[in-house]
Structure formats: C-alpha cells, structure tokens
C-alpha cells in the first residue's frame, strides 16, 4: 500500500521534475524511488524518451533540404492526383455549380416559354378583336354602301339634292312614322316635299295602310304647287297612323321618283 502511494507521489512529481521545478532533495528522492521501483523506472525512462525540445526549437531544427523535398514531392503528388482522378477545388467548384446553374437555366427557359405563350395568347386575343373590329367595320361599310346605294338610286333618279327633304330621307334605309314626323318637323317652313304628281304616284304605290288614310286628305289639297312639309306633317298627325310602323325610304323616294315621271 505504501509502495503504491510512493508510486502515485512519484508520478505527481514527475511533471515538476521534468519542468525543473523540483528542489535538489526532491529530485534525489524521486531518483531513489525509481531505482527501487521497476515500474516507476520505466515511467521515468518513458518521460525521458518523449522529452524533446520545445516546439519552436524543433521547428528551427528542421533541415532546409527536408522542407524543399516536401514541397517538391507534394507538388508532384498533387499534380499526379489532379491529372488522374482528383478534381481540383476549381473543378469541384465548377461541378458543384453546374447542377444549380443548369437548374436555373431550365427555370429561365420555362419562364421564357411561359411568357412567350402568354404573349402569343395576348396577340391571338388582339387578332380576334381586330378580326371582330374588321368584321364590324365591314358590316358598317356594307350598311353604308347599302345606304349609299339608296342615295344613289335617288341621285340617279335626279331627285337627290332636289330638296332638303329628299336628302334627309336618303340617309336612312327605313323610316318609322314617328321619325318621318320628326323629319318633317325639322324641315324649314314651306319646304315642298312632293309635287302633286309625285305624291299621287306615291299614293298609287304606297302601302294600303298609308294610302287609305292619306287619299282622302289629298283630295282636300287644292294647291298645284305640291305637298309641303307642314301639309304632310298634318296628314300624318290627322290620320293617326301607328308611329311605330315603318316604310322603306328607298320605296318612298323611288315611288315618288316614279310618280314624278308619270
């Protein structure tokens, strides 16, 4: 038991002994124990064996040619590894970035395709709208052409421009009784809308619902100068024709034209 205790003390003092912190007597005591204890003697030898100069001294003791050979061997070794299998950090970096870069490129590509598709859809929408506009314009043009043809009929007959009434009438395809009433009311006072011959021709070819009401009224008109706007307006008012009923202006004009000829 005492022996073990001495061994423990020996080891505890070993570090101080190595560091040179033990006094002369303590060192002698330690050496004495080592001489009598084989295990502690081995321990002392172990410490002696491992004792080397401090780090700085060891570093300074490294042979210069050893450092040079290490650099040379390391450079050769790394060059061989780079050439055979090992990717350099640069290559690793490039490889590591390749996948995300490709993924980013794919995302950009998909986004571009998506934007392109959206743009195409937008253009298609615009195209449809333009087609509809063109169709509408064509429809309007057709209508205008039809109206123009009505006016042309009137002009061909030598009636268009003959009076403000006929010019106004030529602008519309069909005209209701109410619109006719309004048209007549807007004409300057004393405007002749039909000569007597024209009006008689109109009566001869006009719808029965119109002629039956107006024929009696016509008999009452004595003037040979023709039918003035006020008179025609009065006839419309007095005959109490349904204001929603309509008549073709071309027919009115043509009839009046044909009536004019007769």
């Amino acid at each position, binding site marked *: 038991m005492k022996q073990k205790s001495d061994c423990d003390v020996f080891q505890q003092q070993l570090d101080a002994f190595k560091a040179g912190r033990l006094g002369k007597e303590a060192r002698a005591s330690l050496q004495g124990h080592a001489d009598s204890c084989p295990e502690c003697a081995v321990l002392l030898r172990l410490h002696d064996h491992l004792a080397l100069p401090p780090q700085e001294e060891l570093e300074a003791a*490294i042979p210069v040619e050893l450092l040079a050979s*290490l650099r040379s061997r390391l450079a050769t070794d790394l060059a061989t590894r780079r050439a055979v299998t090992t990717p350099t*950090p640069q290559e690793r970096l490039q490889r590591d970035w390749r996948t995300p870069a490709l993924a980013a490129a794919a995302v950009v590509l998909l986004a571009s395709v998506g934007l392109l598709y959206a743009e195409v859809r937008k253009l298609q929408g615009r195209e449809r709208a333009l087609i509809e506009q063109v169709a509408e314009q064509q429809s309007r043009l057709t209508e205008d052409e039809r109206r123009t043809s009505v006016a042309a009929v009137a002009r061909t007959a030598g009636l268009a421009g003959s009076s403000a009434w006929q010019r106004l009438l030529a602008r519309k395809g069909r005209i209701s009784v109410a619109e006719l009433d309004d048209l007549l009311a807007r004409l300057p006072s004393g405007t002749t809308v039909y000569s007597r011959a024209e009006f008689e021709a109109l009566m001869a070819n006009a719808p029965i619902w119109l002629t039956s009401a107006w024929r009696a009224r016509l008999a009452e008109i004595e003037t040979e100068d023709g039918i003035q706007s006020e008179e025609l307006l009065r006839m419309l008012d007095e005959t109490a024709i349904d204001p929603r009923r309509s008549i073709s202006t071309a027919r009115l004009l043509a009839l009046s034209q044909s009536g004019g000829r007769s």
Partner: protein
Amino acid sequence: MNDGRFSALAAAFQRGDERSFEALVEALTRPLIAIAYRYARDWEWARDLTQETWIKVYQRIDGYNPRKPFRAWLFAVHRNVCLDHVRRAWVRLESATPGASAVFRDRAATGGAHEQAERREFHEQLLRALGDLSERQRQVFVRVDVEQGDPRQVARELEMKYGTLRTTLHFARRRLARRLRELKEDL
C-alpha cells in the same frame, strides 16, 4: 500570419484559389513537421506524414468550416494522420519478430550506435504498448506526453475537465509503464 488570415486563405482555397493552398503550405508546414517528429522521431518520416496531411487537406477542404479556426482544424487532421501511423506501426510490430522491425528510424538521435539501438527498441515497445490503451487514454497521452501540449489547453480542446484529464493521464502512464516492463521482460 494569424488564425484569421489562415482561415481566409482556406476559404479562398475552397473557392478554387490554388495559390491560397500554396500559401498555407508555406506558412504551416514547419509546425506540422515538428509535431509529426514527436510521433515518428524521424525527420523523413515526419515529412512523409506531413505530406499525407496536406494531401488530405487538399482533398477534404470542403469539410472545413471557414467560420472556425483553420489551424485547429488542420492540426486535428494532422494528429489523426500521426495516430493512424502509430496504429499501423503497432499492427506491423505485433506481426513482426520482436526487435527485428525497422518501423522506427531514429536518425535524429544522438549518441553511439548502441544508444541509438536502445532508443529504437524502446520506441517500438512504446508503439506496441500504446495499442493497449483505451482510445481516450491514448488520446490524452499523445496530446500531453507525445506532443507535449499544455494539459489545460488539451483538456479544453478535448472538452474534458482538467481533473478528469489528469486522472486519465495518470492511468494511461501507469498502464504503459506496466506494459513496457512486461515487453522488456519478454525480450
């Protein structure tokens, strides 16, 4: 050059700057060789171990965290290389005829041929005896007694209490001494 500079160079090397690696080799090779020498007791062997360490660093630089000190990481890699050398050495020694192995070449030793032969023999026995220690005991012993590190610093690095380290070291030394004595008696 300070730790911050080493870490910056290592981070640059991670980004592919080979010249940063060369700068690290230039600045830190001497301390690595000196540490390796404590394990190998041979300059050429110490050089080989240091070369092995740098190759590992070159290949595994991605494993280094640039927010931590590079020097500590490098020395940890180097220590593993040296300990691995110790392990390989005692495996070879165990399978070889006692005293006939040329694992240890103490070219730095001073003294006559007889003294050198004795030192070589003792170092071989030490390598064999290290194989008998537990991993923890071996770790503490090589850090304090082989590398001659400051025990308090080693305790911090190994995340041990200083008292625990002292106890572990005590038992590691005792076990080694016992084993070395047995080996000596076997000869």
